[in-house]
């Protein structure tokens, strides 16, 4: 265990973050996009816990609780919106959402 340093944690968090970001930008299915958004939040919380541990301050670890709570609220509202949209349109592919245009 003594070989794991802050850099290891940060690299893992960075990889998770990039995976989430590329998913948001590249995927077309809204549910997958939404999962990728959550992945980005997870990456941030991982980095937060690592920083909190290596900086020896509790504040980061406390912020993690807030992030988890906020993410839960966001998922509740987000999934409700996506389900309601699916009921109306029968699709959750983002490239088929073209009601709004000039």
């Amino acid at each position: 265990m003594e070989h794991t340093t802050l850099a290891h944690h940060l690299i893992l968090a960075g990889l998770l973050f990039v995976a989430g970001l590329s998913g948001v930008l590249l995927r077309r299915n809204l549910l997958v996009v939404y999962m990728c958004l959550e992945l980005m939040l997870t990456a941030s919380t991982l980095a937060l816990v690592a920083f909190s541990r290596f900086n020896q301050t509790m504040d980061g670890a406390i912020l993690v609780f807030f992030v988890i709570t906020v993410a839960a609220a966001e998922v509740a509202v987000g999934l409700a919106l996506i389900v309601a949209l699916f009921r109306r349109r029968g699709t959750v592919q983002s490239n088929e959402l073209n009601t709004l245009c000039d």
Partner: protein
Amino acid sequence: MISTLATIDVAFKALAPRNADWASIMPEICVAGLSLLCLLQAMFSPKALKSLIPVTARIGLCLVIAMACISNRAWSPTQGPVTTFAGLLQVTDLTMGFRLTFLISALLTSFLATRFLTERDAVIADYHHVLLVVTAAFMLLIQSHHFVTLFVSLETAAVGLYILVGYLRRSEASLEAGVKYLVAGGLSSALLLMGIVLVYGSLGGPGVDSLNFDQVALALNAGKATALTMVGVALIIGGAAFKLGAFPFQAWIPDVYQGAPTPTTTFLGTASKAAGAFILFILVTGPLQPLAGKLAPLLAVASILTLLVGNLAALAATDIKRVIALSGVSHAGFILAAITALLVAGDVEGFNRNLLSYYLLAYIAGSYLTAQALVSIPVADDHRRPLLGLRGMMRRSPTIASALGFGISSLAGIPPSIGFFAKLFILILLAKLKLWWIFGAALVSVALSIHYYFAILREAVVRPTLDQEEVPVIEVSPTAKFIIGTLSAVTLLGGLLFFL
């Protein structure tokens, strides 16, 4: 063991909120209580009294506005910023103006929403509940002095706004706008959080709470900034710029504004934009002040591009809500110009630090006047309002036509409207500081905006209806007439307030 507990107890007592802390957020507590009252009324009051829910919300909001004004009088500007809740919140001389912006937007949105939602068979109580929660969250956001309060209040507001945008469950447009806003907003908050984490991690150390704004400023002044910090700062600025709708985070704006119910569109365009503006201002003049030399050019470039992109896109739009949305982007450019100027000016005497609040209050008057006119016009789809639909408005309803006239002139900045003075003060400040590039871009943007703003007025007022055909007359409700009258007076005479 017991001695450890005793030290922890002392530490807790030092951090515990004092009575003065609670008093300082009384307006926020009252707005949150009001939002619960709306729900309780919906649950327990008989059907005949359900129409009183918006009335409760409005009376409550008026009382809170009065209370905020009175509590501000007790606060003297000489005493400097007051930190409350062990450094989580901070009240300054600007807090009052910021709070008023949100309270007035919420009040006017309630007037817009009631008839709009009744016509579309949607629940009114829930809308007011969420609206007031978002308002309270915004009011806390602009007092935040710690990244935890900033993130939590920003997210509370964002989640509420997702609901308000997708509120019309039977409308495809509203749901589509809601989902688009959800993905864009989720992405921006994920980036913002990563920014906060990087700043926290790279500036922190044992015993340093680097989520606190004062500590961040101290660490930056001590030259502890690394490449990681700079990435974090850029991501945080991006998160605030998304709320403001500044370039390059403006792509979501036209679709979301067009699809959202018109009351929500107006609330997004004013309160949410104001929140972005204020938090950006607080960040660059507070914790990120030591980086002002690097941030000022960045904000200047963003401001010029936002002004130009917003105006050029608005020139091409043909739907009224899209024109208003994209012109809102150019207003965001003006706001960014003001923030850049205030940042460059630093603590120089001789200009008003309330410039941002003035600009946004003027913008609110124009926006809500235009929106009140739009929601009074009956349409089949809320998201399809072509410019042609305004033709003959002068004969159909002179009230709506004049409301559009006053509202649009104020947004365009025609003298002597309130919008003209708001723009003028920013231009004067830019000229004083010799920021000629932004000054030029702002002037060009005013000239361009005349074109698309007056395209709306041309349809509504000037163009005659084809061969004098019979056009249906629109009835305007007494409440709407009252709001239109009040806001017209404000846009016309409000400019004089600046000289008091």
